[in-house]
């Protein structure tokens, strides 16, 4: 796979994730007990043998640069190829509305020119899956496609997210015959925001975009060139989560508590890599009661935890009851706290006696480092 370079593009509409993206870009959103979203596209690329990968960064880069470093954990700290941070294009026009902003790539043309690979694989940073991309590349060559998009049949967005989706109509040949933005039509499949094409084609598309001043890959390029370009859809069979809202961020993490999904995504032969952290094993104290939960190292649990995800170094006090919740690193839960359907961001501290319960589809979200004292909150 020395012939393919990877680009992880940057999602600009960070607001959709509400409090969770304060101070971090979408790619750096914590996910699944010890990962960040970027780990999935990055590991998929590396596991498929791609060794030259550019990650487009927003201004909120500290968490992401810290997390990825020189790419050691992905084996990218090598003399040839490696991991590169690419700046985003600052342009005021229309920026939140671009799904895949080619201008971000255009401002990094020198990096693309310097890279020796023939193909470029572009992936979004909000796609959680464990996919063998070498199969996509083989499909692309076999079909002699200009562009191959990866898609998923039968994927169900939650109601709110339907309009975020990109939908494809595929002929039996695999050729994409129609694309719909936000409005799925009967028989359409969902785009997974993964594209492969020759670098030379990308260069000419970028040239076009810069002339027209229209930069979105999906709406400005694919949609208007469905005839001219041979666009193919590769159907992926495995588990996929498209995490494009706070609600889906919650819902899809909860998917991981289903053993078959956990197996497919995290306990598969191809590992999703993430930054290695120090920390002792998790301690289950006397009186702890843990069921159906995904838990990272370094936690200390004295209470009850059920159907929940605990990131590193979470402390659960005696008598606390945590249900259906996601607790990010270094969260501290005091005695007798009750949580149900709650996302606590990094470093949140919930003092003794607090009760936070959501009965709604939406979880309660508490932002980073906040301290909650004895509050009772019920969301319906």
């Amino acid at each position: 796979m020395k012939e393919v370079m990877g680009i992880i593009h940057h999602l600009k509409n960070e607001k959709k994730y509400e409090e969770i993206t304060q101070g971090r870009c979408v790619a750096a959103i914590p996910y699944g007990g010890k990962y960040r979203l970027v780990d999935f596209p990055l590991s998929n690329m590396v596991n498929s043998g791609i060794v030259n990968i550019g990650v487009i960064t927003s201004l909120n880069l500290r968490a992401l640069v810290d997390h990825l470093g020189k790419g050691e954990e992905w084996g990218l700290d090598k003399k040839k190829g490696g991991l590169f941070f690419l700046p985003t294009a600052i342009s005021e026009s229309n920026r939140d509305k671009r799904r895949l902003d080619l201008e971000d790539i255009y401002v990094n043309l020198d990096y693309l020119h310097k890279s020796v690979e023939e193909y470029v694989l572009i992936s979004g940073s909000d796609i959680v899956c464990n996919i063998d991309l070498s199969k996509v590349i083989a499909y692309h060559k076999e079909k002699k496609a200009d562009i191959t998009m990866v898609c998923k049949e039968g994927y169900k967005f939650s109601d709110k997210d339907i309009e975020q989706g990109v939908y494809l109509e595929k002929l039996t040949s695999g050729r994409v015959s129609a694309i719909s933005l936000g409005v799925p039509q009967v028989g359409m499949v969902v785009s997974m925001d993964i594209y492969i094409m020759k670098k030379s084609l990308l260069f000419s598309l970028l040239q076009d975009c810069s002339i027209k001043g229209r930069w979105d890959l999906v709406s400005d390029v694919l949609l208007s060139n469905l005839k001219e370009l041979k666009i193919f859809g590769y159907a992926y069979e495995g588990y996929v989560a498209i995490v494009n809202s706070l609600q889906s961020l919650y819902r899809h993490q909860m998917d991981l508590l289903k053993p078959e999904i956990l197996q497919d995504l995290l306990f598969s032969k191809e590992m999703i890599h993430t930054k290695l952290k120090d920390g002792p094993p998790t301690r289950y104290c006397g009186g702890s009661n843990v069921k159906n939960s995904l838990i990272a190292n370094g936690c200390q649990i004295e209470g009850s935890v059920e159907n929940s995800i605990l990131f590193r170094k979470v402390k659960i006090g005696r008598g606390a009851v945590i249900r259906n919740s996601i607790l990010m690193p270094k969260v501290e839960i005091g005695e007798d706290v009750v949580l149900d359907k709650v996302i606590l961001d990094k470093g949140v501290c919930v003092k003794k006696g607090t009760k936070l319960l959501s009965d709604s589809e939406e979880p309660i979200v508490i932002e980073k480092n906040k301290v909650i004292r004895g509050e009772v909150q019920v969301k319906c």
Partner: protein
Amino acid sequence: MERKECIAMLLAGGQGSRLRRLTKNLAKPAVPFGGKYRIIDFSLSNCINSGIDTVGILTQYKPLVLNSYIGSGSAWDLQCGMENGGATILPPYVRENGGEWYKGTAHAIYQNFNFIEKYDPKYVLVLSGDHVYKMDYSRMLQNHKEKQADVSISVVEVEWDEAPRFGIMNTDKNDKIIDFEEKPQIPKSNLASMGVYIFNWDILKEYLKKDVSDANSANDFGKNVIPRMLKEDLEMCAYHFEGYWRDVGTVESYWEASMDMLEDTEFLNFFSSGWNIYSASIAQPPQYIAPDVHIERALVSDGCLVNGDLEHSILFPDVYIGKGSSIKDSIIMSGARIGQGVVIRKAIIGENVVVGNNSVIASQDQITVVGEEEKVLSNSQIGTVLRNEGIDDTTKTVAGLSG
């Protein structure tokens, strides 16, 4: 090369034969401990936490696992390199006139004279790589300087009935060491040497040379060098260490020290942030605890899939426990696969062991050890009685082991 005030020499060559199957393929300091560590992590972490950034690691017995584990040393912030010190593996080697194995602890240090001279230190800290403890060596060094000692030996109070197992110090009221006995039958004190020494390098140099030229010497610090120093009336100071310290040299003491980690005691608080015990982490997904299991008083590492009950036990990374199994008072090392309906009591299960469904691994009071890579067939009943006599006994009594 920058001059260093103090460098550490870590003796990591021991076979640890009393740990039997646990050291079949690796030296004692490389034995896994505490759900995520290896024994050497304690000494290495103590070094860097004490501000000592140059550590020579003396290896000799089956060093492959240990060497791979240490790697570049970066897990402990001890990156090896031409300029900075860091962690350097020091195996025995050949010179113009042939090679010499490390005969005793003192001989091992002597053979690496050049390594020490390279840093031209004022003090040399000599450590064993096979004890479990958290200690700030910089305080001991401070005390050493204040006392203007030639040699400091760290001591810990042990139970009087355990004292005959240790090197025992007798000190005057100023903590000057006036007598030292290796494993005395009738100990005069209960101050045991922890195997942690600080020497002024110029003095150590002199005594190493003397020791090596003495044909009758076993070239051991405890047996030869320290007694000679005492006899020649050096300023030798006992440094009192207060805190948790264990020699985990036998299967029993290894098991006990492991179980100590499960108690809510302060003396070995792995959760304190200021004094981390570092280890070389490996990539694993989070641990998953299934519905309908009971898990209490346990340490569990990343990558474990726990579908059975767990009490008062330690799971290393990447352990699988099948449905309906029950594990108690046990230690299960990385990569082990425990089938369904298995019962394990007071056992140590080695790396990558596979235990078939409905097996029972338990014995009356003894600790059962299943060595790494072994396979326990389904429905086996393993009630091993391990004695100190050796490993052969054991193998015979392990029914149902294949491969």
